[in-house]
């Protein structure tokens, strides 16, 4: 439609709608939205054209405006791969934490899940959990992480027991 700053108010509203819808749809599907993904969505809809600096600038401006307008749209801090966005209408903050940690440090994610389970519920954690979405780890991957975990600083070891076929793990955490 335009790669210039001077877009019509109607076009701007369309862009806002597409951005909001894009983030919400991703959240509903259990995914975080990146700037690039949202931008590609606008290109796909033929609302923005090209990858010029001007277009990018315009996009970021309107993205900020969209976030300010809709209270359910949240921006997560940039951890090196650009900021991520989600809709609190469809995704909880705790879920975003899992998704971010999954991208950066699986070992830490496992430890954090066990720690949170001990602190909040409290309860032991079934090994099976990590095979389910959103973790989606295979048994061998998980065993590898658990072995690795035993040598990590702050984690003294782990114990897995079998109760009617359901393995549960307990982490023995070093005192901070």
């Amino acid at each position: 439609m335009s790669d210039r700053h001077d877009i019509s108010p109607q076009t701007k509203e369309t862009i806002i709608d597409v951005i909001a819808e894009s983030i919400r749809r991703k959240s509903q599907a259990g995914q975080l939205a990146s700037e690039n993904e949202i931008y590609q969505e606008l290109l796909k809809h033929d609302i923005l054209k090209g990858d010029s600096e001007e277009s990018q600038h315009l996009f970021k401006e309107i993205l900020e405006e969209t976030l300010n307008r809709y209270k359910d749209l949240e921006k997560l801090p940039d951890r090196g791969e650009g900021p991520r966005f989600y809709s609190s209408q469809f995704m909880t903050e705790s879920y975003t934490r899992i998704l971010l940690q999954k991208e950066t440090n699986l070992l830490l994610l496992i430890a954090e899940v066990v720690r949170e389970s001990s602190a909040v519920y409290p309860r032991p954690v079934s090994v099976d959990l990590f095979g389910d979405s959103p973790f989606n780890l295979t048994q061998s991957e998980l065993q590898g992480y658990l072995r690795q975990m035993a040598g990590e600083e702050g984690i003294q070891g782990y114990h897995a027991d079998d109760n009617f076929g359901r393995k549960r793990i307990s982490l023995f955490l070093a005192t901070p």
Partner: protein
Amino acid sequence: MRGLQDVPKGVSLGDVVFRFTEEQGDEVFPLRREAKMRGGLPRICSNLRILAGSHRDGTTPRCTNRCPAAWKGCSLHRLSQEVERRMWNMAKHGGWAGKVLRIDLSTGRISTEDTVEKYKDVLGGTGLGYEVLWEEVAPGTKPLDPANKIAFGTGPLAGTGAPCNGRTAITTLWPTCWPKPLVASGHMGGQFAAELKYAGYDGIIIEGKADRPVYVSIMDKKVEIKDARHLRGQGIRRTTVELSQQFGPEVCVAAIGQAGENLIPMSVVMNAYSHSAGGVGAVMGSKNLKAIAVHGTGSVKIAGKKEEWEKLVKLHLSLLGANNQHVVPSSPQPWAEYYSPGSRWKGSRGNKWGASEPAIDTGICDPHDLNTIAYRTNNAAFYLGDIAWKYTVRGNGCTGCPIRCHTMIKVPSVAAKYGIPEVGMNTCGGLNFGRSFFRKFPDGARGMTSMEACMVGMHMSDDYGLWCNYSQLQRDFIKLYETGIIKNKLGEKEFNSYSWDKYEKGDPSFLFELLPRIALKQGELGTVLGLGTGYMLEAWSLSEEEWKKDHRLSYWKMGHPKHHASEEVGQCGVIINTQYNRDPQCHSHCNFTRNGLPLEVQKRLAAEIWGTPDAVDALGSYTPMNIGKVRMAKWSLIRKELHDSLSLCNWMGPWVASPLKERGYHGDDSMESMLYSQATGDPKGREELDQVGERIFLLHRALTIRDMGTKEMSTRHDTVPEWVYDDPEKRPAYTKGTTRLDRDDVKVAMGMFYEEMGWDKTTGAPKAETYRRLGLAKVAEELGKKGLLG
């Protein structure tokens, strides 16, 4: 939408026009209440009431005669009397079908009695059963005597659109209750309760004994006792098919298999392929009653307004979690603030019903989407692990229940390998029936062999009609085998007739050797296992005390195991497990503590329900007894009896927590009373209905005391097994990591419970004033004469 709500027809309460006389016949009317009607009807005569309002011609009815002396000459008075009678008929028939069937198999006499007049104070279900046993079955009667009776009881919510309304309570003297059979109930889901209601009946009381095998057919008002000799020796499946072919596909058949026919105490009655009530098969067998086939073309009427009823049902649906009212998913979901790996809410994106065509992804299961409630629960995956998803066809279940806890699995390989159908379904103990006999499988506890054992066990036990006694049968078997008792007790010939090498290897085909012999009472081992734990111990001169010490056995008392006791809900679980004459089948307490919400949230909810956050502890981090735990125990028992008497499923409720963040995870503690009031038109608040639940529970207590012939309940009945006070790692009670309890503290707990219930603190026998307070003065009088009051 059958059974949901019939639109009122031909009746307007503000309009004294009687159009409902002939056109409706005996059909049950829905009652539509108008504003200000609840407080009673305006009186125009000194002793009669008549509706306010006008005739169609605009005149207002007035009684000008001097009533009541001249009432016979007063047409308006007669009119008012007719209105009142009709009004009462309408009112009393909301929810209830109106009649209870009584079938005397000795004489062939079939009669009916008015449900509301006779059983309204105990609602139906277990309440009806306890009432029948109290009034009609003399102490000392044995379970298999013709004088024993079986009460199939449904409640006023059966067959309505209320969620989870499919339960039938079957009450009788319990054949596995040891050393003396006492009253107990089995509960089956399925479609039986609704069909019975649609046929016009709230319950069936079976008495006497037929002189030959018979079955009962109930086709609406046509009730017959029919020859069942052609069904003798058939399994439940064949019996069901035969009767379904005869009466049509909509008929619901509750049948016993060979186990029941052979008077095996460990036997069930089953309807709708997989829904069984344990323990009563032999009692039916003793009466030569093979099956009950029922089909109704009527409906259940709702007293409340259609819109309000539908709103209430929708509210109830919105509060549902998964099976066991687990209100958080088992794995993180985008919408979920919390999750719990122990939850039965297994639905998740990527978890597919793989044997469905096409495969169905259960998705994120947003709790606001009421059309995907059935995707949440997969009990095959809960027990068997992820391998089960591939073989899952769908969930199946009871009338009006969206939870669908009977997971249907299709395992094609078992057809050729074992000669059994490739599709099977069941839940919990039924699903695990075959698997639970084994100590190990070649490919692990959650491998393919384990699943095959489930399939073999399900098909065999559900056809023979065998009962697992909450898997005590399997635990007993393992104990007997491991300790060498089986080898010692059996002759060499019989012992060697079993392929123990198959058993050791975890080969499911071993079940083909064991299960038929239990059902057909063949050999020493088969016969003894079919007796139930208590009588098995007696037959083989084994010590019950030994069973009570062993953690792994989970044995509690009187021939039955624990059912969600101290290992899940501390002292509250102990109290509940002391109260019944079989495993208590109560889930009210554990469905709260194991609902998956964080302890902090549970404590917040607990404070509102039971007055203190201390009512709940973290699992394995117990605290000493307190008043909140007593209140929770009392509430749990009352709700269990209410559910069993209303036909709601206690395995799915109560609904005091919900998956809804916007509600602060609150459910609604008044759900039962709201459903009851709207359905029946008998307005009762939560506390008032709880009193009815307490009355029903108290009647069970009275029956137990009367038939035991002692009031020393605390020492003779409400006993606690030793394993509760032990810890395999010898950790002290009330330290982190153990569910061990302290003996003195449990004694305190029982005393507090007795006091809260209005029972004698020492003996545990209810006091006369407690019976009177709950409307059971006659019961108190009878027990008083026998010196059995607290």
